[in-house]
């Protein structure tokens, strides 16, 4: 049963401790935590009571590994029962080490293998465009190392050329790509026709502003976080 009252940012450490059993961890080190919180708290129009609303925003967590922050935010916002977090990864749990959309309410895609979310996001965007769906943005979160996968660039190129303005990509950049991105990540998207912003991935106001700015072009927000 979903929780009836939603929780706040300050409750996330409690939820994360419930998930992992680890009471000493510095949860602020989780690279995706603040980005996910800002998305669910301030940006995305999603509602656990209306999971199939055609006007809802679609959020695709492409970087599916290390989903603790995702599950904690989903629990805080009432998509999953906070008590279910304790069995994270268990045989009877719906919450695995990579999320499964068939098992978890509000999870739009199953992920884990890198480089799959963004191409799917482009397909969703094209479908929403084809039926002139009101509202309904598509937001896809990837990691900087995930961009090593060439399949992402197939999607970046097409989305740019087609001008898919309702698509936003958040790159959580904690400099984990072995060979890095000389010249920066944002410029690669800009060359392909995207609008780009690079912000402090811990600054909630900056994230909100960058993530709510949309236009005719697809949007990339590079959220820099310390490794």
């Amino acid at each position, binding site marked *: 049963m979903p929780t009836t009252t939603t929780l706040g940012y300050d409750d996330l450490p409690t939820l994360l401790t419930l998930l992992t059993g680890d009471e000493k961890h510095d949860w602020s080190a989780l690279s995706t935590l603040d980005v996910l919180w800002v998305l669910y708290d301030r940006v995305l129009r999603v509602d656990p009571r209306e999971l199939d609303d055609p006007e809802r925003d679609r959020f695709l967590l492409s970087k599916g590994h290390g989903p603790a922050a995702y599950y904690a935010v989903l629990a805080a916002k009432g998509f999953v029962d906070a008590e279910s977090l304790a069995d994270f990864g268990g045989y009877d749990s719906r919450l695995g080490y990579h999320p*499964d*959309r*068939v098992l978890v309410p509000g999870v*739009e*895609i*199953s992920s884990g*293998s890198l*480089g*799959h979310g*963004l*191409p*799917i*996001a*482009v*397909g*969703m*965007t*094209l*479908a*929403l465009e*084809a*039926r002139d769906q009101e509202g309904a943005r598509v937001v896809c979160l990837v990691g900087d190392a995930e961009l090593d996968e*060439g*399949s992402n660039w*197939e*999607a970046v*190129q*097409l989305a740019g050329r087609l001008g898919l303005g309702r698509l936003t990509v958040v790159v959580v950049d904690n400099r984990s790509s072995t060979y890095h991105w000389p010249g920066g990540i944002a410029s690669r998207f800009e060359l392909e026709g995207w609008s780009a912003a690079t912000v402090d991935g811990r600054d909630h106001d900056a994230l909100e502003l960058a993530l709510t700015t949309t236009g005719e072009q697809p949007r990339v927000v590079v959220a820099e976080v310390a490794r």
Partner: protein
Amino acid sequence: MTTMRKRFYELATRALDDDPRTALVLAEIGASELPRHERVFNVGIREQLMIGVAAGLALEGLRPVAHSYTPFLVERPYEQIKLDLGHQDVGAILVSTGASYDGAQAGRTHQAPSDVALLSALPGWTIHVPGHPDELERVFAEALLTDDRVYIRMSEEANEAPVHADGLAVLRRGSASAPVVVAVGPTLDQALAATRDLDATVAYLATVRPFDAAGLRALVRGPDVVLVEPYLAGTSAAEVAAALADRPHRLLSLGVANAELRRYGSGREHRAAHGLDAAGIRRSLEGLRLPVAA
């Protein structure tokens, strides 16, 4: 006779107009044969994206049809087929052209005889191997009405006449002890010619997954089963073994050899090289030492 490929483009064009759910996803191949339409998405030469986009469309309730040459549709984006479609629990229709050796002159890069084996290894796929453009029309129309994962394998090879059946269709019935020859898709005419004067039951199969195990059990009375498949030899051998697990039987699996044939030439020459023409099938059957009918 029109080719399956030409018929497919006609059918797909009509489906776009008839059903607002239908969407075509292409990676250049086929783009010039299909109309400009708001639900025809040519992603350029980007096959991983082709399947990912098909999945995204399916997640939003459309009925995507992805089409390309066999190796670029099935082999190159295989993980996308496994995850973006299967693991997301959505469907699509994949329609390939080129079959095993239609691209004989093009060489190995344009041949994918293991396509059916690969898709058979993933859960939930219905696999059609039509032997005639009219069969293609029927299975494509049916597939559009579902949300299933459906693979349709088109070929330049075709039989003279269509056979419309959901499972095994008996075209010639031999004696009780006669071998049962299961001819898949476009191999039928060659199989019929090869067995013309033999005591053999010849059955046709165009939908190979799910495999018609009940039909095979009902048909097989003697010990011998012969599979004639226009793709990798033995692709359906495990299906036959499972269907007949409680009966002593002998299976001869004919099909495309696994070894790479480094030859160009024609599809007809490749068919002969793999022993899939009437003479080759006949030679293999003689190896079973079957009695010749009086």
